[in-house]
């Protein structure tokens, strides 16, 4: 708010209250008459070819698939992830020259982990398929509801 901003309603009420009764009544009556005149005005119609021209511009400049800010964010996240990964390897004393070998070693370990988790899931599924299915469905539904609510709050 700058100094040119108008007064709030409360200050306006105070201003009107400070006026003499007949003066205030006369002013308000003039404003009422002015309002009647203003309410008789209407927006002009745009040129007849307005919609056509808009659609021509739209056709000439299709909507971008991603906003520039989103592209910049994606680039930033990718770069940050890559940098963090390299720094993680280096901080373990591997050195820059060993980053490739270390990455391959980690990949092998991750592969073993994935295979292990897969075997565990398979074993659980064989022993209690129905409870697992119900549990996963409930988790999925509750997550979707929660995300939708979060979306509404954020909006």
């Amino acid at each position, binding site marked *: 708010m700058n100094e040119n901003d108008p007064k709030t309603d409360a200050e306006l009420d105070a201003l009107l209250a400070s006026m003499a009764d007949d003066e205030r009544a006369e002013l308000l009556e003039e404003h009422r008459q002015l309002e009647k005149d203003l309410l*008789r005005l209407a927006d002009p119609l745009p040129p007849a070819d307005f919609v056509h021209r808009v659609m021509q511009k739209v056709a000439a400049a299709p909507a971008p698939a991603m906003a520039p800010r989103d592209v910049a964010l994606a680039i930033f996240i990718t770069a940050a992830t890559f940098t963090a990964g390299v720094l993680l390897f280096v901080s373990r004393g591997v050195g820059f020259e060993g980053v490739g070998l270390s990455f391959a070693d980690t990949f092998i370990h991750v592969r073993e982990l994935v295979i292990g988790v897969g075997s565990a899931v398979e074993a659980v599924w064989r022993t209690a398929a129905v409870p697992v299915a119900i549990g996963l469905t409930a988790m999925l539904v509750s997550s979707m509801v929660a995300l939708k609510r979060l979306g509404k709050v954020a909006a």
Partner: protein
Amino acid sequence: MMAAEEGAPYLAEVRRARRGDSDAFAQLVRSIQRPVYGICLRLLRSDAEAAEVAQEAFLRAYQNLHRYDEARPFDLWVMAIARNLCLDLLRRRSRMSTEDVSEHANLLPSGEASLEQTAIEKQERKSLEEAMSTLSADDREVLALYYVQRRTTKEIAEVMDVAPGTIMARLFRAREKLRKVMTAAAGTESRGA
């Protein structure tokens, strides 16, 4: 016309337009072109510039449909875009348009049946438009949004990006300036007669 979905007008068309349906976007443009063009004309006071800026506002709305917040009324969102473009143009202008505003006064139709309007009523409306054109862009805008477009104070606050509590005071101040202009004009006319 307006598609009401979940209580929000235009939402169905917006969603179709987001999926690439240009007919849906054309429908949106047809539905709200008048208030968008109207506010541009009130601010810029030039037919050509108002049409150009209003078209640009719709184009930007189309290009940013993925950013549109469905919780907001679509027409107010586009009007806010148009308003910002108008204000940018006003800031860039080194001088105000020299176009005779009385031309617009003749173009601005009344909400009533034009055949029944008397010459006096037309003259009064013309005088009112001319008096309005002497006000600041902010004053013209708040009067047009409230009285011409019949927007609520909350909607006006959203378009103008100000606190809703200040709208009635802005209206009063704008009306008071308008009243003074019209009183002065009436005084000049009566002295000339």
